[in-house]
């Protein structure tokens, strides 16, 4: 109870210092928040592109229905494959007419349908990698009635290279931002504790235990971090709304990220307090 009372009293006694510490924490986490929104949206965009990765298996005109059915069954039994869809020659022509209306006349004048039947293979989440795609294509190619398989190897390779670069960049920049945020939060909390070093000294003087001294400061550090985290979320959300309305549509980060961000603020504040206090508690 004393710890809670003292932590809250410290906010009341030095509102400017509290506001400054909270603002420093908020700004540090705001940068992290903006980065989180950017990386989340990049990740989502890549996911959407990735969902379009599929293998198309073209079958010869003389392939029997039972053979195609067997092919589909075998492909569906692979862990990489989520689903398969068969498109007959007629379906292919129909789709071509819809997709390429400018060639409508050409398609009408055809005496023979030149488009092959095909099986489109949808890959499961987590299996849209160049290796999985190639494995599925190789399996389909074994069948003699399969004329060709297409999956845009070059395109898939580039997509995954882009994804890898994105992942590494996110990890490096994210870590750097997190470290900078931790240092700023640490400094803000240290300043707050430095301002109250005389209080710590008096507590030591009259016989306070380490725990008694530490508790309100830890709580204060955690509260500063949580408040700063909350403020950072509000600032990030305002920026997200602004960009979404004025420039281009963005996705808001998941709730778990928001909670994790605020909790990280609290944890950083708590750890920074514990670290800063060590020095003053060492002074007997």
């Amino acid at each position, binding site marked *: 109870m*004393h710890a809670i009372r003292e932590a809250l009293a410290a906010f009341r*006694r*030095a509102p400017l210092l509290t506001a400054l510490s909270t603002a420093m924490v908020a700004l540090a986490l705001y940068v992290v928040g903006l980065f989180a929104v950017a990386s989340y949206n990049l990740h989502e965009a890549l996911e959407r592109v990735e969902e379009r990765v599929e293998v198309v298996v073209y079958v010869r005109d003389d392939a029997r229905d039972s053979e195609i059915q067997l092919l589909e069954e075998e492909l569906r039994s692979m862990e990489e494959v989520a689903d398969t869809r068969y498109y007959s020659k007629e379906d292919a022509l129909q789709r071509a007419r819809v997709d390429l209306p400018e060639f409508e006349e050409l398609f009408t004048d055809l005496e023979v349908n030149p488009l092959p039947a095909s099986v489109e293979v949808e890959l499961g989440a987590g299996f849209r990698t160049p290796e999985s795609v190639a494995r599925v294509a190789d399996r389909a190619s074994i069948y003699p009635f399969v004329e060709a398989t297409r999956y845009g190897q070059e395109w898939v390779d580039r997509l995954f290279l882009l994804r890898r670069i994105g992942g590494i960049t996110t990890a490096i920049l994210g870590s750097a931002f997190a470290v900078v945020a931790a240092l700023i939060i640490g400094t803000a909390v240290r300043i707050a504790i430095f301002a109250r070093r*005389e*209080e710590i*000294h*008096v*507590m*030591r*003087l*009259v*016989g*306070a*235990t*380490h725990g*008694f001294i530490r508790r309100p400061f830890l709580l204060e550090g955690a509260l500063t971090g949580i408040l700063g985290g909350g403020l950072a979320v509000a600032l990030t959300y305002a920026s997200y709304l602004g960009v979404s309305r004025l420039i281009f549509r963005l996705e808001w980060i998941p709730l778990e990220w928001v909670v994790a961000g605020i909790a990280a603020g609290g944890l950083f504040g708590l750890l920074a307090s514990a670290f800063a206090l060590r020095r003053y508690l*060492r002074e*007997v």
Partner: protein
Amino acid sequence: MIKLNHVTKEYARRGKALDDVSFQVKKGEFAFLTGHSGSGKSTTLRLIHMADFPTGGEVLVCGFSSNVTTPRDVWKLRRRVGFVFQEFRLLPGRTALQNVTFALEVTGTPRKELASQGRRLLAQVGLAVKSGMQAHELSGGEQQRVAIARALANEPLVLLADEPTGNLDERAARGIMELFRDLNARGMAVLMATHDLDLVRAYPDVRVLELNEGRLVFDSAAPEVADEPAPARDA
């Protein structure tokens, strides 16, 4: 109550601050600790308060030995030994009463008793009527009285004072001295460091311990001193 056994304190850069110092202050005794600046007065008080530990010998205070007590356990000693500084060290932004109740709260006084106990302590140092004033609104003498009231929060057996009158005018200094005498009369041992020899001379019945360059060079209670005229203390 306080016993220093061949105590030496050596710092890496400054060298020896105390050199083989031994003396004892008994329960209910009042003693001045005098000497030049840098003679080792503050170091002695810090060792007694266990704000620092000796590099040789042993300090015994209220049953706590410097050879056994760890920095984590020092709080137990602090609840039996009060400390008053020259520069008061009151918490800014708090009233006289809040400065005292802060110490009471730290030492576990129930919340509902804080105000009444704080006022009682302030009354004991003659500041009952100024309990609501901010620390900076009080005079130097009054601030030192608040600091003493704070030091009394634990009902200590020993009161250590490091130049408590150093920042005060003569009248205020006498007032603080009378307060110490009053506390001593109630059974509290008082060890007061001062370089003010006029103040020391004004209380001839008080024991004097004199340090010079880290060595105890004079003890008015020592048997040889009792037999002979006390050496001149004009340092």
